C-alpha cells in the first residue's frame, strides 16, 4: 500500500514528507528529480517512475508534485485517485492548495494525512468525516481555541463512518434548509481547419450543495434521462433504482459534493455553440505574416456566450505580432510565443475579431507547424446536451426545503486547428 508521501514544489524542494510505514529516505526522490529534468515541462513528468526498490507515483496540481512512494504491487489508479483526493481535501480545508498555505497549516495537514491513511490503507477520505475528526482552521476557531484552550481535533467518533450511510453525519441541523444543484457541462471538441467537428463530447457533472436537517431522502428525476447512458455516481446514489426507473434516489452527504458525472459522446447530440473563422498565412518570401480570427456564436439556443478567451501557441518562428482587436484585450508573449485574447461577451450583431500582422525571423523558412487555437467560454442557464431536471422531492423529513437548479455550459478542451 502507500508507503510515503512527498510534496515537492516546482523548484525541486521537498517541503513536506509523511510516512505511513517505515521511513523512506528522501533520497528516493532523486529519481523523481531526474525524470523532472528530462521532461521539458512539469506537466510532462511521467506519473509512474520505477526506482530499484520503490515506485514513485505522482500527480501535479497547483504547481505542486504530490509524490507517493510504494513498495509492493499496488493498483496505481488507487494511488493516483488517492493523491487527487488529498489535494481536494487540502483545497476543501484551506480554500486554496499552495505551498505557503500547506506550510502555514502544517500540523493540520499532518493530522489530516494521518487520518486519511492507516498503514497505507485509506481510512477516512470523505471530507464530511474528516472535518468531524479534525476541524478545518478558521480565524474564528483559532481565536476561540486560544482563549478556551480547546482544540481542532474532535473527540467524537465520526458517527457516519460506521452507519449504512457513511457519507453523512447524524444530527445535522440547519435553520434554513436548502438544496442546490448545479448542472455543469463542459464541451471537449476538436474542430478542424475547415470548421467541421472531428470529435466532440460533453463531460457533465451535477454538483450539489445540500444543507438539510436530519436524514433526508431525495429523489431527482430528469425530463430526458436517456441522455445519461454513461454515468458515474456518488456512492450515495441507489444504483438499482436508477437501473430500473432512471431516477436518482439518495440520502445526500452534508454540504458540497458531486452527485454524478456523465459523459455524452454521440456526435449528433453535441451542439457546438461557437465557431472561429481564421486566416493565418505565412509567405515564404516575406518576413511578415497575416493573422486574422473572428469568433461567432453558432448553436447557443438564444443564450449569450460570455467569458470568451482565445489562446494560441504560435510557431517558434514568430518574433512578434501587431494586432488590433475589435473588443477586449490581447497579449503576445514573445518568449513563450503565447497569444492570448480576452474577448468577453460575444455580440451577435458585431462579431469580435482580432486582426494584424506577425513578424517572422528574417530569412527563415516559413514555420512547419500550424498553431492550434484554444477557446474558453461560458454560457449561463444552458445545458448544451439538453439535460433537464424534472423534479426534486424529499422524503423522510417534514420541513419544506428551498430547492434550486442552475445550468451552465463551459468549454473544456475546446480546440480549433488552423
Amino acid at each position, binding site marked *: 500500500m502507500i508507503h510515503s508521501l512527498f510534496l515537492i514544489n516546482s523548484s525541486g524542494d521537498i517541503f513536506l514528507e509523511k510516512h505511513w510505514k517505515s521511513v523512506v529516505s528522501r533520497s528516493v526522490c532523486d529519481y523523481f528529480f531526474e525524470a523532472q529534468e528530462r521532461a521539458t515541462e512539469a506537466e510532462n513528468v511521467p506519473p509512474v517512475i520505477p526506482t530499484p526498490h520503490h515506485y514513485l507515483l505522482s500527480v501535479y496540481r497547483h504547481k505542486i508534485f504530490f509524490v507517493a512512494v510504494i*513498495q509492493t504491487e499496488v*493498483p496505481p489508479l488507487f494511488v493516483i485517485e488517492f493523491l487527487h483526493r488529498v489535494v481536494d481535501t487540502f483545497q476543501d480545508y484551506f480554500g486554496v492548495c499552495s505551498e505557503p498555505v500547506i506550510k502555514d497549516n502544517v500540523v493540520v495537514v499532518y493530522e489530516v494525512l494521518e487520518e486519511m491513511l492507516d498503514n497505507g490503507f485509506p481510512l477516512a477520505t470523505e471530507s464530511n468525516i474528516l472535518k468531524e475528526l479534525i476541524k478545518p482552521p478558521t480565524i474564528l476557531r483559532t481565536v476561540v481555541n486560544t482563549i478556551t484552550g480547546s482544540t481542532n481535533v474532535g473527540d467524537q467518533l465520526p458517527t457516519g463512518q460506521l452507519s449504512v450511510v457513511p457519507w453523512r453525519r447524524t444530527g445535522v441541523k440547519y435553520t434554513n434548509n436548502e438544496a442546490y444543484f448545479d448542472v455543469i457541462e463542459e464541451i471537449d471538441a476538436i474542430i478542424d481547419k475547415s470548421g467541421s467537428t472531428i*470529435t466532440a463530447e460533453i463531460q457533465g457533472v451535477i454538483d450539489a450543495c445540500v444543507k438539510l436537517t436530519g436524514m433526508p431522502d431525495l429523489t431527482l428525476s430528469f425530463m430526458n434521462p436517456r441522455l445519461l447512458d454513461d454515468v458515474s455516481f456518488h*456512492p450515495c446514489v441507489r444504483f438499482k433504482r436508477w437501473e430500473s426507473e432512471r431516477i436518482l434516489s439518495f440520502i445526500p452527504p452534508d454540504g458540497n459534493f458531486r452527485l454524478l458525472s456523465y459523459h455524452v*459522446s454521440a456526435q449528433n447530440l453535441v451542439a457546438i455553440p461557437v465557431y472561429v473563422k481564421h486566416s493565418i498565412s505565412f509567405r515564404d518570401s516575406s518576413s511578415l505574416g497575416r493573422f486574422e480570427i473572428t469568433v461567432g456564436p453558432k448553436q447557443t439556443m438564444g443564450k449569450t456566450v460570455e467569458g470568451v478567451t482565445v489562446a494560441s501557441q504560435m510557431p517558434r518562428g514568430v518574433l512578434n505580432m501587431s494586432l488590433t482587436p475589435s473588443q477586449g484585450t490581447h497579449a503576445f508573449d514573445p518568449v513563450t510565443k503565447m497569444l492570448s485574447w480576452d474577448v468577453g461577451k460575444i455580440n451577435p450583431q458585431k462579431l469580435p475579431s482580432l486582426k494584424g500582422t506577425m513578424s517572422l525571423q528574417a530569412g527563415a523558412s516559413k514555420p512547419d507547424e500550424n498553431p492550434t487555437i484554444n477557446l474558453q467560454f461560458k454560457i449561463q442557464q444552458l445545458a448544451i446536451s439538453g439535460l433537464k431536471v424534472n423534479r426534486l422531492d424529499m422524503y423522510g423529513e417534514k420541513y419544506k426545503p428551498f430547492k434550486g437548479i442552475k445550468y451552465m455550459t463551459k468549454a473544456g478542451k475546446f480546440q480549433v486547428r488552423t
Partner: protein
Amino acid sequence: MTDSKYFTTTKKGEIFELKAELNSDKKEKKKEAVKKVIASMTVGKDVSALFPDVVNCMQTDNLELKKLVYLYLMNYAKSQPDMAIMAVNTFVKDCEDPNPLIRALAVRTMGCIRVDKITEYLCEPLRKCLKDEDPYVRKTAAVCVAKLHDINAQLVEDQGFLDTLKDLISDSNPMVVANAVAALSEIAESHPSSNLLDLNPQSINKLLTALNECTEWGQIFILDCLANYTPKDDREAQSICERVTPRLSHANSAVVLSAVKVLMKFMEMLSKDLDYYGTLLKKLAPPLVTLLSAEPELQYVALRNINLIVQKRPEILKHEMKVFFVKYNDPIYVKLEKLDIMIRLASQANIAQVLAELKEYATEVDVDFVRKAVRAIGRCAIKVEQSAERCVSTLLDLIQTKVNYVVQEAIVVIKDIFRKYPNKYESVIATLCENLDSLDEPEARAAMIWIVGEYAERIDNADELLESFLEGFHDESTQVQLQLLTAIVKLFLKKPTETQELVQQVLSLATQDSDNPDLRDRGYIYWRLLSTDPVAAKEVVLAEKPLISEETDLIEPTLLDELICYIGTLASVYHKPPSAFVEGGRGVVHKSLPPRTASSESAESPETAPAGAPPGEQLDVIPTQGDLLGDLLNLDLGPPVSGPPLATSSVQMGAVDLLGGGLDSLMGDEPEGIGAPNFVAPPAAAVPTNLGAPMGSGLSDLFDLTSSVGTLSGSYVAPKAVWLPAMKAKGLEISGTFTRQVGSIAMDLQLTNKALQVMTDFAIQFNRNSFGLAPAAPLQVHAPLSPNQTVEISLPLNTVGSVMKMEPLNNLQVAVKNNIDVFYFSTLYPLHILFVEDGKMDRQMFLATWKDIPNENEAQFQIRDCPLNAEAVSSRLQSSNIFTVAKRNVEGQDMLYQSLKLTNGIWVLAELRIQPGNTSFTDLELSLKCRAPEVSQHVYQAYETILKN
C-alpha cells in the same frame, strides 16, 4: 495565526528551547511545543533527541495532544526502541478506554511502532480489539494485523491472528470485511504459497454483499480479491459478473478498473453465444471512455490498460476511435499512449479518419510526438492493407514538407512498407532519392541504403548512390555500415559487370579496416560466398524475404492473457508480468485466465493457458530438449536445426538471415570442414585482398567465424602484480601477469634490478602443476640488467609439461635463477588463459552433454553488479574464449548457454542467467557443469574477473 510560526527558530538552539517548553507545566505551552516538534519533523529535521520529553506528554486526556504525541512516536520509535517501551503502558490502558475512538487510535498507533520489543505487548490488546463490540475498532484492528505481520510474521502466525482475520471476512459490517480482505491480501503477497484467501462460493457471496456497502477503497480491495477466484462454471461466472457490473458506474476510477479486471477475466468463461456476453461487451465501453476524461495521470494508467484490453478484445472499443484523438495540450505521455491505441484500433472502416489525424499530428511542435505520428502512419499501412496506398501518399506529402526529421522518419517507415508490399510502390523511390542528402540519422540512412540495395536493378545510378556513402564509411554507425555492405553485395549480384570494384572496396573496408566483429564477420561471409559459388550467393543474399506483419508489435498471447489478470496493477502499466520486476521476485504466482468450461465450445481461444501450468515453475534448470530446440529455432543467429521437425515454431529468416539461414548449409559442403574443433585461425593480417582469386586454403581458413573473434581481440589480461619482492630476492623484483593471445599463452614478466650490482644469467623453471604449464622457450634477457634498470619479457608457455595436481588448482611454483642466487615464488594463474579457441560446442552436443553430466557436478555462483548487459556479457566472454552456444529470453531475463574447453580437454558447460538489477548493472547467476567439478570454482573466478574488468 498560522502554523508557520512553528518554523521560526531562535539563536539559542532550537532543541534546547523546545525541551524547556515541553517540560512546562502549562498545558497550552506543552501543546504548542509538541506542534513545533511535529512541524520540524515534517520537513525532515531530526528532533529525535526530544524523545523522552515528548513521550512524557502522552499521559493526557487532551485528544489532540495525544494524537500529536502518537504521530511523533510513530516516526521515531524505531530509532529509540528502549524509550518506546516507556509508552507501552499508556497504549495498553488506552486500548481499554470506553471511547472507541481512543481504543482504535491506540491499537492503530501501536501497530505503527515498528519495534520488535513492543510487538509482544501488542498481542493481547490486539486480540481484544479484533473482537471488540465496536466495528470501528475491529476494522482498525484488522489492518493492525497486517502491520504486525510486516514486523514479525512468525508472531502473527503463532498467535493465531490469521484465523481471526479470516473470520472477520464473515463480519456483519462491510467496512470490517473490506479491511480484513485488504489485510489478508497484503499478507498473502509476502506469502504466495499460504492459501490465506481461501475463496469458496460462500465467502464470495459475502464479499459481493459487502461490495455494495463498503467504501470505495474497500471496493477496490474486494474486487481485486474477487479477481483471484476461479468460478466453477460459466453460470457462477455470469452471476458474479452481474453483481460486479454496477461498479462500472463508480466515480472512483480505481474501482472501475478493478471491476473491468474481474469482468475481463470471468468473461473468458462465458460462451460467446450467450446474450449476456454481448451485453457485457457493450457495458464495458462507456466506463473505459469515461476514464479518459479524468486527470492526465489517471488517463495514462487507464490508457496503458486499455492498450491491453484492445489487444485482447478489440470489439469492445472498436467504435470509440475518436476518444483517442490527441489534444494538443495533452501531456506527452498521454499523447504517445493514445497514438499507440489509435493504431491498434485502426481498421478499414476508420482508416481515413485516422490518417487525417496522424497527418495533422505530423505538423505539431513536439518532435518526439511528430516522429511517432509518422511511424504510426507506416504501421497503419502494414496493418490495414487497403490503406497502404493512401498511407504512402500521405507519407510522400510529408516528405514534401522537407522538415528534416519528418523526412527521415518517413523514409524509415517506407522501408517497412516495402517489406510488407514488395514491388508495389517503387514509383516513390525517385522522390526518396531526392532527399538522400538531408538524411543524417543512422536509422534513416540505413533504411535508404536498404531500399537502394533492394531495388538496385531499378535505380539507374544505384552504384553512384551507394558509392557516395562509401566515402565516409568509417564515420558511419555500425547499422549503416552493415546495411551498406549488404546493399552493395546485392547490387553486385544484380549488376555484376559494372560494380566489381565497388564490392571489392566495401569488402576490404569491412574486413580489414574495421574493429567491429559483426561487420567483419558479415564481410567475410559475403566474401567467401561470392568467391565460392556466386549462384549460391545469389540464392542466399537475394532470397525472398518473409513479409513483415503488424503482429510484431503485439504482445505475445500467453503474456497478454497473464497481463489481463493484472489489469489495474503496475504490471499492466509496464506490460510485464510481476515476476519480471517486483522487488525480490519473492515467489510471484503466475496467474492465468480461467479456462472456458465444458459447457461452452472449446474452439475458442486456443491461447488460453492450460490451468495445469504449475505456479512456481522455476526456470533455473535447463529445459527439456524439445523446449530448448523450440527456443533455439527462434534465434536468428543459428542455422536450422536438423532435428525432428517441430510444428510449433517456424524458422525465421529475416533480413539478417545472411548470417544464418543458408550459410551453414553452404559451409557444410566444404571439404575442409570449417569450424572443425582443432582448427586455429591465422592472424587477420593474412587476409588476401584479391577477390575472385581461386579459393586457397588460406582464404577459407579465415572463415572460422567463432574463433576469429576470440583470437583477434584476445582474453582479458590482469594488470601486473608483484610476485617476488626485491627484499626476498636480493634486489631482484619480479612482477608479472598471464596473457592468452591468438591461441598462445604467455607469462609477461617485468624484472627490476633494485640491487647495486649488475644481474646476468637469468633462467626460469616451473614446478609440475595441474595443467602442465611449462615455459616454451628459455628466459631470454639479452643484456645484463644494471642497477635500477627494468626489463620486460614475454615468456611463451605451453601446456605439455608434466602434470601434478596442485592445491589450489591454479597454483604455479616458479624458480628464477640469476648470477646471484636461485629464488622461488608461487603465483596463481587465472584459469581463463587455459580456455582454448575451439571451445564452442555444437548445440545438440551441448544439450546431450548437459544432461549427461550428473547433477551433483553442478555448481552455482552469483556475480553481482556486473556493469554489462546480455550482449556485452556474451561478447566480452567470447573474447576470452567462453562461447555462447545459445541464448534465449525467459520472462525478460536473458539466459546464455555457454561452453568452454580447457587445454587439457576438459569441457565446462555454463548456464548464465542475467537479471536486470540496478539501473545499469545486472546480476548474473552462473550454473556450471563439468565432469571435473573441482575446476568450477576457478572457472567462476575467471568469469568474474573477465566480466568485472
